[in-house]
């Protein structure tokens, strides 16, 4: 077992990278038992490991199965460490409601975006797949979200995204939320046409877009 917080963080990052959910949980339990700062352990252990996995994905060393299992390991650790995060270490507080629109059950892309948003410090409310347009709006209002993130892989369900925008407009609450869209058949042109605030072709770009739209970074950065 690692002797120092730094050693433990490195071991944790490696455990996530190597898809070892059991070891990840063990190390997180040890961090709690030793009184290590939970947020630092998340940042320098779990998130560092997930970032390394993401880099390997970009380099075609890892593929979707590896990334999904790495994220399972990360979430196993998060479940242990979350209750121990001190209020002083809270993240920037931006909130995202995310889901796959009604009629579509392809949620891997959405899950990757969710992970990367969480890694970037967003508080994410994941509504899952096959989500009715009204449910996005209701949840966004309920949690006072900053961003509504909509995903679909199918051309038949693209229109569900414009329905979300329409409901926001009809309720005179469009200005309260940034709406971003993503998924294989989409384009910036489509995003513009339905009146969304942005389109991201890849998960990493969705995070950058959410940061820009919520003022965490400026668009030129």
């Amino acid at each position: 077992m690692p002797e120092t917080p730094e050693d433990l963080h490195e071991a944790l990052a490696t455990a996530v990278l190597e898809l070892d959910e059991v070891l990840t949980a063990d190390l997180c339990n040890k961090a709690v038992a030793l009184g290590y700062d939970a947020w630092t352990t998340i940042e320098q252990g779990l998130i560092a490991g997930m970032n390394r996995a993401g880099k390997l994905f970009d380099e075609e060393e890892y593929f979707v199965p590896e990334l999904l299992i790495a994220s399972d390991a990360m979430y196993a650790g998060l479940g242990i460490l979350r209750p121990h995060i001190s209020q002083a270490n809270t993240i920037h507080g931006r909130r995202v409601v995310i889901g796959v629109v009604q009629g579509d059950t392809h949620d891997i892309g959405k899950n990757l975006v969710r992970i990367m948003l969480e890694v970037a410090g967003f508080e994410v409310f994941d509504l899952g797949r096959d989500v009715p347009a009204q449910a996005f709006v209701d949840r966004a209002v309920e949690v006072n979200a900053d961003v509504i993130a909509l995903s679909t892989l199918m051309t038949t369900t693209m229109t569900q995204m414009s329905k979300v925008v329409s409901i926001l407009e009809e309720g005179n609450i469009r200005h309260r939320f940034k709406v971003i869209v993503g998924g294989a058949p989409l384009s910036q042109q489509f995003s513009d046409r339905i009146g969304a605030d942005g389109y991201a072709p890849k998960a990493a770009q969705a995070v950058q877009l959410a940061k820009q739209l919520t003022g965490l970074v400026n668009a030129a950065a």
Partner: protein
Amino acid sequence: MSANGRRDELTSLERVGLALQYKKPDRVPAAPLVCGASCRVLGISYDRWSQDPKAATASLLAAQSLIGFDGFLTLVDLSVEAEDFGQEVIFPEWSTAYPNFDNPCIATAEDYGKVARIDPRKTRRSSAVIEIVRGLAEARGKDVAVMGFVYGPLGVLSQIRGHAELFKDLIRHPDRVLEAVDTITGSLVEYAIAQVEAGAHAIVLDPLYSSSTILRKQTWERFEGVFMRPIADAVRAAGVPVVVHNCGNGVYFDAVIEHIKPIAISHAYPAHGSPDLKHHAEAWGKKVVTIGVIDPAKAGHEWSQDELLEECRQQIETFRIADGGFILSSGCEFPPNGNLQSAATMVKAAQLHGWY
């Protein structure tokens, strides 16, 4: 009469048949993969279209008559086989059917053993597709290409287990996955043969996960590539050619060709390793016939007719290098809710710009 005043000299079937053999037909064939979109031609709801073979056949025939495309594809949806293997499927009134993953047939890894052989000639949805093939072949099979469709065994399994869970099981429970894929493969062989017997001129196999954005090449080969081979061999033994469709990004053309040996590949993006379509055409255009590569979402929802016409013209020019081995098509199913005029414009583009 064609859009530019020239008259088609061949039937659609002859045109497609020649293109698939790298023999230049009168002009580039156009097959914009109008499948579910055809339900709107006769005003039939999507859920009925998906489940009533007579209604689907009538719709596809009416769409071909209206649009003039050169080939039928009997892709109904990717849940056809899954339902027959026991998965609950949801049928929206105006959209594509999909599995209810809140009630997956394979809820845990232990459930892979529940997958059992089916007889696609008797099961509800597969038999309906076979009837669609038969109806199309009887009505127009002498003139228009009829292409059957079979989703690959790993794809079918993902529609029963859930995509994410299946991908994780490839690492956690590979033997159970392989056993289920093997069982499904046996049924798909029968399904493909039944479509040939019903009159299909070719069978389109869809190995969706042979894509670099999803699986490592060796992973796809282990879990699906080797299983695709007996399906493809059975189709060829039944007397018709095999075509591959994969709308994923970065398709492993080399592995797909090695395992399936298709005469054509229908795709939406350049092959893995090709940075753009021009490079792709130079690398692969003479090795396997290209069916594609118009962006379906843009064709159906975004581009003006003039923009689409120009995009088609550019692709026809890009694939002149293939010496006749090119069929203008959308890279995936034409959007069921897309502008049908755009499908007609793709045919018009071939008639305007596709003469050899």
